[in-house]
């Protein structure tokens, strides 16, 4: 069976500086992976390379989403193919109404996949359901995208987008940063709702805390731009005890 995400010996650079140094990772449908690592180990870079952020260049190796080469797709094509990146710092988009944004995103993806577009009433109904699950006030969703939202509200909004778009592969980039415990619980609940046999989830985090709420099947340690150790969920607890020092020295 084709893996959902298959990264093989991936090397990538930004502004001429190599950040990923032979990255290997396989995520199968139904699995939740956690990638942990010290600051500066290239965790966010991985998420940007996979989502296609301008400036991030693959120099060697491959990243395949359900067998399709991501490097051959534009950013929006990757999203339509089922890749979703929950941003560490979701952006504010002044002047663009949240509903307009959600409609444009969902229907552009559906159109690209040859599916029927969702009608406005259906969309509003669905967004209302999700807002309830995520304990969000609909008033917030009448504002422009993320404008004036607190850190926690932005992460809820990201989670709502993810739940609405129903991607095949969710990459959560430091979703726990800037979250208080209530928001963390709500966001984790949302993510757990998305766990399914058809979907893969990659949780990128610095701290073990998030993994108390989103239990991973596999934990990886990333250092200096590649995976240096892989284990079960107990690896996260071990890291909490020992810290990242030995992985940093190993990389150096």
């Amino acid at each position, binding site marked *: 069976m084709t893996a959902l995400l298959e990264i093989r010996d991936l090397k990538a650079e930004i502004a001429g500086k190599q950040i990923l140094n032979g990255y290997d990772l396989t995520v199968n449908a139904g699995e939740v992976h956690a990638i942990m690592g010290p600051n500066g180990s290239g965790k966010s870079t991985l998420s940007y390379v996979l989502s296609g952020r301008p400036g991030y260049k693959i120099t060697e190796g491959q990243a395949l989403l359900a067998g399709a080469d991501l490097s051959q797709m534009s950013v*929006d094509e990757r999203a339509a193919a089922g890749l979703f990146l929950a941003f560490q710092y*979701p952006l504010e*988009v002044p002047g663009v109404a949240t509903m307009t944004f959600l409609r444009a995103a969902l229907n552009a993806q559906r159109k690209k996949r040859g599916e029927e577009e969702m009608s406005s009433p259906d969309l509003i109904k669905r967004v209302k359901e999700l807002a309830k699950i995520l304990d969000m006030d609909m008033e917030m969703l009448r504002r*422009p995208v993320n404008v004036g939202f607190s850190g926690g509200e932005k992460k809820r909004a990201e989670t709502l987008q993810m739940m609405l778009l129903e991607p095949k592969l969710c990459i959560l980039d430091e979703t726990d940063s800037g979250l208080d415990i209530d928001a963390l619980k709500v966001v984790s609940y949302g993510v757990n709702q998305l766990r399914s046999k058809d979907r893969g989830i990659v949780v990128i985090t610095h701290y073990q805390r998030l993994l108390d709420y989103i239990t991973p099947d596999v934990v990886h340690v990333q250092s200096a731009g590649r995976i240096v150790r892989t284990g079960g969920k107990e690896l996260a607890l071990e890291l909490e005890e020992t810290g990242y020092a030995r992985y940093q020295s190993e990389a150096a």
Partner: protein
Amino acid sequence: MDKAPVTPARKLTDAEARLAEIFATQLSAGAPQTAKLRAAAFDAFSKRGLPNRRDEAWRYTDLRALLRDVKPLAAPPDESAKQSARNAAVLADVTARRVVFVGGYFVPELSDLSDLEKGLSVMSLSEALAKGDAATTAQIGNVGEVDDPAFALNTAFMGEGVVIRVGAGVCVDRPIQLVFVASAQPATYFLRSLVIVEKGARATLIESFEGDTTQEYHVNAATEVVLEEVASLERLKISREGAAAMHVSTFVAALAADAQLSDFGFNLGGALLRNQSFINISGQRAHAALRGANILKGKEHADATLFLDHAAERSESKALFKSVLDDTSQAVFQGKILVRPGAQKTDARMMARTLLLSEGAQANCKPELEIFADDVQCAHGSTVGALDENLIFYLMARGIPQAEAEALLTEAFVGEVIDAVENRSVREALTTLVSERLRTRQ
């Protein structure tokens, strides 16, 4: 006795010579006061000639160089021209009282002047001038002191337009839309309107200009507005001219005490577009909000030139102009704020923002402040930039294709000036116009 220095007569351009010829042969008719007004205006025009880059107010729009020939004065429209004007599309979905002009001529059968609200009067300019309407002849050309050759030319040649009077205390809810549709022949149109909003009255005026033709035609339009005490007017001017059209328009407004003016000029097409505004605030606590938006592409050139004259205490003006420039289009913003002696507590702000969608596009911004009072707040600013690449990435990461992401962000940029339009259906229609225009990008 010394001889007075003699300025050698400048050789007229072909266009100037042609204008003189048309003036001499075709415009002697009309009531005596009007003939006198025209003659004085043409005289004023002749002294300066077509404005050119050495005129500071026309520095970036050299009309003398651009106007190579003068198209003939428009002939009355035929049936087919009237028929095609039925499809006039700008703000067609807005509930408004329409007054329609085709090829520069008033077309009663396409206009709705029935059941005028009590206290509202609407008359065609040609009718008012022909019968020597006293109120019209007293006010026209007299609303403000405007020393400008394009406006003088308009006064000399003024052909058709409306005279609107909103009686004291009358509130006209339904917007009045003047629909100017160019016909398919090359022609020159001189359009002129006068709007008097009496004490405590209120109205909404829309002026839309469109031409579905690739022919070159020239529009010289002027609107004079008198706002008496506590009067209020929202004015919207939308220019979606044909690709080869030249459009020069003058707006003159006089604001008495506590009057409120909200003006929005929106340029959506035309080879050359100039909106010049002369706002005279002579009443205390009067308030003028002036907004503009350009969405340009190809080689289009749009010029917004603003002159704000604060001559009374505690008056306010807020100007916000936004331009979206694609290809090699150009936008000009010139804004001058004059605060006269004694106009204390004036609050005047002016901002021009430009979004460049292409490397070949160009923006020129020139603000000027001239302040003769010592207790005022005046500010101006301008920004020029491109779309935020991080935002484009964010939108694309959600599956929105690049062109659509750029259109959404551009709509948001322009949205700020449109959101300030009070009439909801007009606001929605304008949003649709923006959306259509942006989605026809190459």
